[in-house]
Each structure stands twice: as C-alpha cells, then as structure tokens.
C-alpha cells in the first residue's frame, strides 16, 4: 500500500534515486536496531513514514545525520495519532525540548515505546509522563482532571469529573499525599490488565 502511495507522489523519480542511498542508510539505521524494539526493516519503514510527513523538510539521505525536526502539527496529523486525545502530550513527552517537534530519533523512540514489544514498566514510565500535564513528576488532581476531560471530550459535568478524580486518587494513591507518584502509578498499572493492550500504537 505504501508502494502505491509512493508511486503517485510527485517526486517519485527523486525517491527512486534516493532509495539507492538506502544501503548506506540502512547501515546507519542498524545502529538503531538494538536501541528500539524494531527490526531493521521496520526502522527503514518508519523512516519513510517520517520522511513522508514533511518531504521538503526531511532529507532522504540521513547519512550526514542532519538535525531536522518535524513540527508538531504534522506529527499530530498522522493517522495513528490524529484521533488520540493525548497526542499532544505524547509528542511533548518524546520530543527533545518538550515542545512537540520531533527528530527522527524521537519519532523512532516514540513508536518503539508504544509498540507491542515494549515491556510494561517502560510503558508505565512513559504513560506517567504523558499523564503528568504540568511536568512536576506527580499526577496531581489537576492532571487527572485534564486527563478525564480529554478522555470524555469535555462532556462530563465538572462535578462528575471531580468525583472521578477523587475516586482515582482514593484507589491509587498509596502514600496519601493527594497525588500520584511514579511508584503509585506503576503499582496501579500492575493491577490494570488492559494497560498493555491499550497503550499500544500500531504502525
């Protein structure tokens, strides 16, 4: 399917030429092989996805390791992310400076963590960061309210939202400080059977 798409793209000739560079690139990408959960083929495929996001910005030849960042708006409009209520947080967590603009490394990192091969603890760690909207290393009540609002698209009343947040804190707050630390969160995730299957993006 991606082949068809590439064939209809305007710069098809340049792409064919560029694919010849891919040998060198795949050597470059083999460096990434053990750093992510993807195989070399998948990394190449992901690279082409990344490149497709911003063909003018991202060069096909990565052997010179250019410092290129794809802006958040393009990342957020990827089909895998566009319907996700947390896409902005995901991009922020995995980007270099927390602004959502991602380099190729960030891109690979993101999908590697969100792939089905990543272990639970790794996912829990990043999930914690995603749900921590104010980046204070704790999920406080305000973070929870933001999460619930995003989950329900703002269609629950404020009273309901605060009740839910209260219940979540009751359930998960182990040290009773009114907010969830990473430890609390990880303990809670251990008891959440769906987490591994839902915290997973297929690409």
């Amino acid at each position, binding site marked *: 399917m991606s082949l068809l798409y590439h064939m209809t793209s305007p710069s098809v000739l340049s792409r064919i030429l560029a694919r010849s560079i891919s040998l060198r690139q795949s050597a470059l990408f083999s*460096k*990434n092989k*053990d*750093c*992510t959960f993807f*195989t070399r083929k998948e990394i190449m495929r992901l690279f082409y996805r990344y490149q497709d996001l911003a063909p003018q910005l991202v060069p096909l030849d990565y052997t*010179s*390791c*250019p*410092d290129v960042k794809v802006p958040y708006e393009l990342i957020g409009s990827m*089909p895998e992310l*566009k*319907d*996700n*209520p947390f896409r902005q947080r995901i991009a*922020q*967590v995995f980007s270099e*400076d*927390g602004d959502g603009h991602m380099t190729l*490394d*960030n891109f690979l*990192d993101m999908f*590697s*963590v*969100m792939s089905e091969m990543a*272990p639970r*603890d*790794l996912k*829990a*760690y*990043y*999930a914690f*960061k995603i749900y921590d909207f104010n*980046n204070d*290393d704790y999920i406080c009540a305000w973070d*929870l309210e933001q999460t*619930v609002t995003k*989950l*329900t*698209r703002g*269609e*629950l009343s404020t009273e*309901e939202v605060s009740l*839910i947040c209260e*219940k979540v804190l009751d*359930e*998960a707050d182990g040290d009773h400080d009114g907010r969830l*630390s*990473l*430890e609390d969160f*990880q303990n*809670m*995730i251990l*008891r*959440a*059977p769906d987490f591994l299957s*839902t*915290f*997973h993006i*297929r690409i």
Partner: protein
Amino acid sequence: MEPVPGSSGSPPASPIPGPGRRAAAPSVGSWPVPRDPARRGSGGPARRAWEGRRRPAPASMTSAPEPGIPAPGGKAGRRRQLPERVSGGLSGAWGAVMSESSISALPPGRPSRQPFIHQESLSLDSSCFSSPPVNFLQELPSYRSIARKRTTILSRDKQSGTLLKPTDSYNFQLEGELTEDLDSQSIRKYALNISEKRRLRDIQETQMKYLSEWDQWKRYSSKSWKRFIEKAREMTTHLELWREDIRSIEGKFGTGIQSYFSFLRFLVLLNLVIFLIIFMVVLLPVLLTRYKITNSSFILIPSQDVDIQCTVYPISSSGLIYFYSYVIDLLSGTGFLEDTYLFYGHYTIDGVKFQNFTYDLPLAYLLSTIAYLALSLVWIVKRSVEGFKINLIRSEEHFQSYCNKVFAGWDFCITNRSMADLKHSSLRYELRADLEEERIRQKIAERTSEETIRIYSLRLFLNCIVLAVLAACFYAIYKATIFSQEHMKKEIDKMVFGENLLILYLPSIVITLANFITPIIFAKIIHYEDYSPGFEIRLTILRCVFMRLATICVLVFTLGSKITSCDNYLCELCGYNQKLYPCWETQVGQEMYKLMIFDLIIILAVTLFVDFPRKILVTYCSSWKLFQCWGEQEFAIPDNVLGIVYGQTICWIGAFFSPLLPAIATLKFIIIFYVKEHPVLQSLRAIHQLQHHLGSGPQDSEHLPQLAADAGLWHHFGSLRSAFFHDHLPHYVLLHRPGRSAQAGGRPAPRAAEPGKS
C-alpha cells in the same frame, strides 16, 4: 590508557593519578563486579526498600548517565549533529564512566535529587573500586561545572528522560549479572532517548574488547541466539491464519471486535484439529482399505449378545425420486447422505485387518471421541487461563475500576474517527455508569425495609415470568421436535417441497426464533428489577447464554425420549424404538447436521437480506429521520459470540454421531469470518476514501449516518461491476444509544465481554 568508551573525537584529559585510575579500570575495563559482601550489606536503605518490591527480573545496568552530567554534552549538543552527540564530549564520557560504576539503587521519580543520592549511596558503599574513583571524579572541574549547570536545566532534564530507567523498578542485582544482562536486549528497555541508548551501546561494545575471549564469545553467542529466537518467533507469527486481517481490524476497531475475530479463528483451528484426529483415527484405515491402497481387508464380527434385529438398518432407496429430493437430502442429511461417511450408521465395519495387526475400528471411533473432547477442553482451558487471570484481577477491580478506565481506558490503536467517537462515548458511559453504580449502592444501603420487601417481591415475580418464558420456549421446542419427527416418517414424496423443508427444519426454526425473541424480552424485564447497571448486564447475558445452551439440551432430550418411547414390548428388545429409529445415532446426527446448516443459512441470510436492504435504505432514503436513526448497524459482540459458541456446541454434541461434522463446522466458521469481516473492512476503506475525498472527517457522531450514506453512494458509483457481496457496505459501528444502555446488546459489551479470552 584506554580511550573512554563512547568518545569518538575527544580523548579524556586524565589528570587522575595512578591509584584512582587503576581502581577505575575495573569499572570500565572488566565488567564482572567483585563480590563484596560488605557492599551488599551496606547497599543503603534505598536499595533495600527497593528489593522489597516484587518486580520482574533485573536489568542490572545502572541508570544511564547522570541527569546532570551528560547534559552539556547532551543538551548543549542537542542542536549538533549525531556523531558528536554520540561521543558526548568529555563530560558525557565521564558521566558514562561514573554511571557504570554506580551501583546503588536509585529511587524512581526523583530525578532532581539523583546525583546527590547517588553520591551518598556510593559513599555508603564500601566497595573497593567504586568510591575512590567516584570521589575523585567529583573533584574534576568538569563535573563541578556540570553540577552547577544541572540545577539550571533541571526542567528540561526531566522531560528528556535521560535519567533513568523506569526500570528503576527493576531490582539491582549487580553481582555478576552485570555482564549477562547488559546486552542489547536490555538497553532498549531503558527510558532514554535513542541517542543515549546508542551511546550506552557503544560503551558496551567497546567494553567487549576488554572482556576475555570466553566472555566475548558468550556474549556474542547469547546475542545471536536471542536474535535467532526473535526471528524464529517472527517467522511463526507469519504462519498465523488471517494475521493481517485481524491486525487491521484491531488497529481500526479496537480490541473488542478483534477478540471476536480471533476467537473465531481459534474455533476454525480447533475444528480443523478435531477433524484431523477423526480422519487419522477413523477414516483413514477405512479409506485405505476401501480404495485398495494398502493390502488390508475388512472384518465383520457378528455380535453375540445383541439381537440381530437391532443391527438391521435398512437404507431407504425409493425407486422414483423427484429432482428436489437431492436438495432436501443435502439440507437434511437424509437419503443419499445417510449412507455416506457423514453419519454414524455408515461405520459398520468391526475391524481392519492389516498385515501385522488388526485395527479395531469401533474402539478407535470411541477413543477418537474421547481424544478430541479432551483436546478441546485442554486447549480452551489453556486459552482461557490468561483471561481467567485477568478476570480474577478484574473481580477485584472494584477498588481499581476508575484507575483502569482513566489510565488504561483509551485504546491507542484507534485510527478511525468513528471508532474514536465511539470510544469517547463508551468511556463516558462507563464512567457515568460507575458513578451511577456508586450512587445506587448508597441508595440500596439506605433502603427502608418496606422498600426492600417491595423490591424483592417484584423481583421474585419477574423471575417467575422469566422462568415461564423459558418454559414456554422449551415446550415449544419439544412440541416442534415431536411434530417434526413424527411427520418426517411419512412418505417424503407425498409432500410439497416447501412443506417438506419446513417440517424437517421445524426444530431449528423454533430454536432460532426463541433465541431471537428471548433476549428482547429479558432486556425489557430486567429494566423493572432495579439492579445496578453492571449487574443488569451480567444477568441478562447469563440468561441469554442459558437460553441458548438449554435449547440444545431440550432438543437432545426430546429426541432421546422419542427414541426410547414405545407403546408396547418393542423397546425391550433393543432398548429403544427399533421400528421407528433403526439407527438412532444417525437420526441424532441428522438433527445436529440440520441445526448447523440452518445456523449457517440464517447468518448468511441476515447479512444478505437484512443488512443490505438496510444499507440501501440508509443510502437512498437518508432524508427520512426514521431510517437515519435505525440505519446504523451494530456489531453487537455478545450476540455474535453467543452465535459462534452455539455453533461450536452443536459441533461437539454432533461430532460423535456425525464424524464429518467438524469439517463442516470449519468451513462454516471460515465462511462466517469472511462474511463478517469483509463488510467491516469495506466500510472502513470507503469511509477513509471519502474522508480523503472530502478533505476532512466528520466532527461528531451525528454525522455518521450521513457519512455511511455518502460512503455507500460513493462506493456504488465507484464500482459498477458490483456483486451484491462485494459492495455490501453495512456500517459496522459500535454505537452507544442511551436507550439501550440496560440491554445486553448495549454498549458496555466490548468491556464486559472479552470473549476471545474467556
């Protein structure tokens, strides 16, 4: 001395005098950490607190470069090119060295204080090699400048995730496991940027040079073995049936619908294996002998203790056969099908004599039955164990239901706008339902005794009604079976075609009607019983499941009673009504065969004759509000799952009497898979194309009917060569409609029923 690992350009300045350096060498050069009991003992309170936690096995590599330390090399270098980042510069390299030598546990979640704890725990450690170089390194001017800078860029540190391994949760088992566990497989489990991981990996690779030959080889072989295992696993997953289809369904529609299809796939495989068992054990010897492939012969042993009359089985072969008899025979298993391998009655052989031994066929038949029943049990239990564990956890979910929904509720796989809308509304519904349940629980606690009595008497009354409905259904099935059995015995030729089929299929028709009507009745009744929403749904599902399975039991029981009922002394001879049922096993097999065929016909007919006109109406009459509301089809997971469970139950019951039934079941499930899956994906493709065409997606679920209409229209114009099936475009959408919230087919279904797992 040796170049600091990871630095490609800048060799470290080494103002470190001898002893410190040598002491540092073990940390860099040779991985096996000396076992230091003192160190273990004084691991520090932080570490002990950690070990108390039950966590999976260790990745022993300590946290990566300190948060502050590589920062300048990392952070400042962030705008620079990759190679420089990999080298990290001087500070990064030293940071790497330091981190490698750091062996203490780092409490998670406190990155800001990390370096200090680090030092404290290290100083607590009486390890012979770690503290001197560390203390020394701390005095390096570079480190001090880093420490100074670290405080100013704290916030960015936290975000980049350079610090830790989340796998801070992993226990530290430094002794001796540093070597084995520090391999590429564990690097990627760290919560680090890829660049950091690359640096770690380069460090690790450089270290390999300093290992002994044996260690190097061990590492290399374990790495390649792990890669081989991964590749093999990848290969075997390619062998999975329908892997791509199910993955695309999961990706687009979420795990609920995917679990239905994966359960369907499991049943296809199960039936295939059952059929293979039966084929190998029963059919193969017979076929080999019949077609003279091997040099064997049949043995017929006349039985002594059973009256000869009981074994007489006249196959009715009438002279003049109407042309439609063949159709009837195919549909009902009578006539020419009766004498085939399909039914029990055909297997009259008592043994197959091979060269060296005699193969006892009746024993083989019996053993094959036991074998495939045992296999089914074991396989299903194995498959359910995971689901059972999950359910066990889920049963204690009361104290974590909110967390699960908030943090693990959103399915990140969803890529479809309509599915996303559905998920939002389903989460909303679930959260509201939970709050509601809480409120009702409180209300129940506050109920007065008068109200309690009233509620309980009402419930009793309604349960009696439910029982009455069930009894009525069972009686109807009983009567229909009796009627059908009696009239089947009349001359088939004398009847009209339609009437004939109707009589033959009467039990199946009544069962299907009953299974269709009773859920509606149950859903209406439960509304008055005033249970909490979760309990309502569970109870309705329970009643529907009971209904489905009990109808088959009633059918079997009726047949049994009919077979053993006789007016006079006839039964004493053979134990059953020999005159009416010369081979009762075949008759039962025929009933099961009919049930199975009818089930398949109904599923195909509903898809074709109900969904397709619905789509047409929605497409062309979308202006009518009635059709707009009614038009969307629901992929009601519990109903569908009950349907295939019902099919499989028929297969199990009938397989003894009709050995080829599992093969028919396999084909049936394959057909069902394609019939159900194709429209699901078709509608999705059309919607995507339409969205692409229009340039934007619909904003909320109100537009869905319009979209379905448009999609259908577009799709129609797009492909004129349409067969009905191909352009069939039911809009399979999981809808939550508040009115149906109390019903079994309603929304919480995808959560409440994870059929694939249980």
